[in-house]
């Protein structure tokens, strides 16, 4: 082949092309990444003009009344006290409820301080809970035709509860930017208390409710409430870390140069602030520990119940998940047995870290316990669903219900003290394990349900 022919052939290599489909898919995935990053970069860049406009928007927003505020004042003043009292007593689904909601918005619009706004949102959360209480009060006595109306009302109340909960989170972030650390953590403490009460309230409602649709809606509200509480607690820890860093910086500056009287007094104030902030954040984390150790105790009880009752139904039951083998199901049970141990070990570590003053690491341990708890809850729910399916399919005499077989463990309305709930490592017990024979003799399991060649 001559060199000219070789070069001509080389040119033909330019006909090598990628698959059109691959090129298109790759473009899509690259451009998704590029677009997200591009937007992030643009949002972080703030030109001088943007900063100028933002400052004046903030300034005028506070002193010049907007149309919303004018309408809010008119609404509050023009509504007669009797009428407003009736509206205050309404619940979602009733005619006057939108007016009640508008009055709440008006109250917020007239409030300038972000701390006050957060407190108002907290007040609204309590109002939503009372509304849900009222709607669910007569759930059993309601006729089937009205149950749909109740479901709609509950969904509406819960959706507004979620909105108020998220508004608390947003409001807290503004407080962090504008107020002192002590004000921030004090507010977080209030938010955490309300979030715990909300969680207990919703837990009780879920366990008492016979309607699975309503239980699901309340479960979703629980999740959002938990997320906002976690966000608030993490905010408090971030603020604490910032104060710690400030004090550390003061100490290192003092080493390098002799401080003036003003600097010394400022450093003193920073140290005092650190002490106060640490005290409040420690209280918040202690309260979290109490809540989480209650959850761990509940999870342990549930795991024990699963071992003793529902595992025998698994070989006959439908698979836990579509296409999941019984071997996989049994594997989930085995790992479930380990969860209470793991949670208790992490709790002990969290407590030790808190006592040593290591607040951030203590909270991380608590987060790990919560994650393990969630995993355990997921497996338990699947087992409950499988056990319920099995009991509906195989037994005609046993009464059916919309709720799972495992009896719910009631939670207390107030967290118990640390010393009674968190066990020391010496007292840690492992969950009851199934015996080698498979079933305990005193369980009284009918012979036909006793497993043969279980594993």
């Amino acid at each position: 082949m001559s060199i000219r022919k070789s070069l001509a052939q080389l040119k033909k290599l330019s006909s090598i092309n990628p698959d059109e489909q691959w090129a298109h898919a790759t473009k899509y995935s690259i451009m998704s990444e590029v677009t997200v990053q591009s937007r992030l970069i643009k949002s972080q860049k703030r030109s001088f003009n943007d900063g100028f406009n933002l400052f004046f928007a903030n300034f005028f927003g506070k002193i010049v009344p907007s149309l919303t505020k004018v309408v809010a004042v008119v609404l509050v003043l023009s509504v007669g006290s009797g009428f407003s009292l009736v509206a205050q007593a309404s619940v979602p689904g009733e005619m006057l409820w939108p007016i009640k909601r508008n009055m709440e918005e008006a109250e917020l619009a007239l409030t300038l301080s972000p701390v006050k706004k957060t407190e108002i949102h907290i007040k609204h959360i309590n109002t939503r809970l009372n509304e849900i209480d009222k709607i669910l009060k007569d759930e059993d006595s309601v006729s089937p035709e009205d149950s749909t109306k109740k479901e709609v009302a509950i969904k509406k109340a819960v959706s507004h509860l979620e909105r108020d909960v998220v508004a608390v989170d947003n409001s807290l972030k503004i407080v962090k930017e504008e107020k002192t650390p002590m004000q921030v953590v004090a507010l977080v403490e209030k938010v955490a208390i309300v979030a715990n009460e909300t969680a207990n309230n919703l837990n009780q409602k879920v366990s008492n409710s016979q309607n699975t649709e309503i239980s699901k809606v309340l479960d979703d509200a629980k999740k959002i409430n938990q997320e906002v509480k976690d966000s608030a607690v993490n905010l408090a820890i971030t603020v604490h870390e910032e104060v710690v860093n400030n004090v550390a910086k003061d100490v290192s500056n003092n080493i390098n140069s002799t401080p003036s009287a003003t600097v010394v007094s400022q450093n003193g104030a920073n140290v005092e602030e650190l002490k106060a902030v640490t005290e409040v954040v420690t209280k918040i984390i202690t309260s979290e520990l109490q809540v989480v150790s209650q959850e761990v105790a509940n999870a342990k009880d549930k795991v024990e119940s699963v071992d003793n009752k529902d595992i025998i139904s698994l070989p006959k039951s439908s698979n836990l998940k579509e296409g999941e083998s019984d071997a996989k199901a049994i594997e989930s049970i085995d790992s479930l047995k380990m969860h209470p141990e793991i949670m208790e070990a992490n709790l002990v570590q969290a407590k030790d870290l808190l006592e040593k003053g290591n607040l951030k690491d203590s909270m991380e341990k608590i987060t790990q316990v919560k994650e393990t708890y969630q995993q355990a809850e997921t497996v338990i729910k699947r087992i409950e669903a499988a056990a319920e399916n099995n009991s509906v399919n195989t037994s005609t005499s046993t009464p059916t219900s919309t709720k799972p077989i495992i009896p719910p463990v009631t939670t207390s309305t107030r967290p118990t003290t640390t010393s009674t709930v968190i066990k020391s490592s010496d007292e840690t017990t492992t969950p009851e394990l199934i015996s080698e024979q498979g079933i305990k003799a005193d369980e009284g399991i009918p012979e036909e349900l006793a497993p043969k060649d279980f594993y």
Partner: protein
Amino acid sequence: MYSLKDSLQEKIQLLKLKNGDSEAFAFFYDQYVKRIYRFTYIRVSDKVVAQDLTQDIFLKVWQHLVDKKEIQNFAAFIFRVARNSIIDYYRLSSRQELPLEYADETEDPYSDQKTSLIDKEIDLQVLLDHLKKMKAEYQEVLILRYVEDLSIDDIAQIMQKDKNNTRVLLHRSLNKLKSLTNNK
């Protein structure tokens, strides 16, 4: 070869790209994806590897822009990134250039096509075999010059050599190709 219009359009898009315009990046993707794929495919002889490398190369280019580094000549820059990525790939996989006895196992780039002119395919396969026997630098300069139609200036930037060295390299690679084709 790029027309003046294409060249001007590319310059305008490059200015937009430097300002973080993601649409401009899409323009460059469309312009260069086939070329980069072809360059990597000829060098690595593996479709899947060529696809992965191509994707990585574009992401590296974007990262370079995010890190606010300058790009004067987009074509030179992206091919340089491609070249370095191929070198890294070989280093990581510790793979040698395929010896002749494995030549049959290389994927025929025309295997997806329905029509087959057998003589043409054989010639092309022979050519690819010859390329494989050459040094990596010789392969690169031949592909960049005769397949991708890049100028000596651009090739010099890509290979981080001066223009004279690049011309010498091109001359030597053509001589090597001539000796391989005459000795077949």
